[in-house]
């Protein structure tokens, strides 16, 4: 799998994604509408990379575990409880910027 250009095709065909907590992986998966379990490896990760995964978990969008609890999570999870992840709104940014530069 190493460094394929894009995982989009694999994502499309997947029913469940198990991933590390990298922001790109998480967001891409959620935007594709796939259920996601995020696996944390505290020893490897910079603290800040956990922030997004934790928040997504708090908001009910992902399951969250570490390597040793992965099996238990897989056995006990109920994917129907995961909430859909609404896309971001760059149009709000455009409106804001237009006001800032005086285009409105």
């Amino acid at each position, binding site marked *: 799998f190493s460094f394929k250009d894009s995982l989009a095709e694999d994502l499309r065909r997947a029913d469940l994604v198990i991933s590390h907590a990298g922001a790109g992986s998480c967001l891409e998966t959620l935007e594709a509408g796939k259920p996601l379990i995020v696996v944390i490896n505290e020893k490897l990760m910079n603290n800040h990379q956990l*922030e997004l995964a934790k928040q997504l978990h708090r908001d009910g969008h992902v399951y969250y575990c570490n390597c040793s609890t992965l099996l238990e999570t897989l056995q006990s999870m109920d994917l129907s409880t995961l909430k859909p992840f609404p896309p971001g*709104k760059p149009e*709000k*940014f*455009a409106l804001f910027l237009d006001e*800032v530069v005086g285009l409105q």
Partner: protein
Amino acid sequence: TGGHTTEILRLLSCLSESYSPRHYIFADSDKMSEAKIRSFEQKRSETFSNSQFTLDRIPRSREVSQSWTSSVVTTLYSLLYSLPLTYKLKPDLILCNGPGTCVPVCASALLLGLLGIKRTIIVYVESICRVETLSLSGKILYYFSDYFIVQWPDLKAKYPRSVYLGRIV
């Protein structure tokens, strides 16, 4: 770099044609951003007829977890490149979102402003990955940007000067 480029292109996705020409500045060590940017601009030119953009590279200011003292040195080195570049471009608006590369560019713009050469509006958008803490670039530019945008309410609470528009990427 990578995630930053993806985020900034999303930020640009709804901007009108008034935001032209677009000058992209990124680190010389960045291999992937150029392709992403070209692809974005290519798509854009299908909708907007007058799409103008340029690409410029400057030395990377800082590697992840690089030490403080050596970061100052490498950032100053990047400044040697960013200052003439910013002087040449004289941008009306700088939009940046956190890679170390943005610090020397913004510093250059601030300097040009102080010298009365060009007043640039600096808009900083912190990455969506930053929920509870700011990046190092964010901590610096929180004080020096005209508008500082965060994407999570915790940060808005901690940094009252910031703007919160919800998730925008």
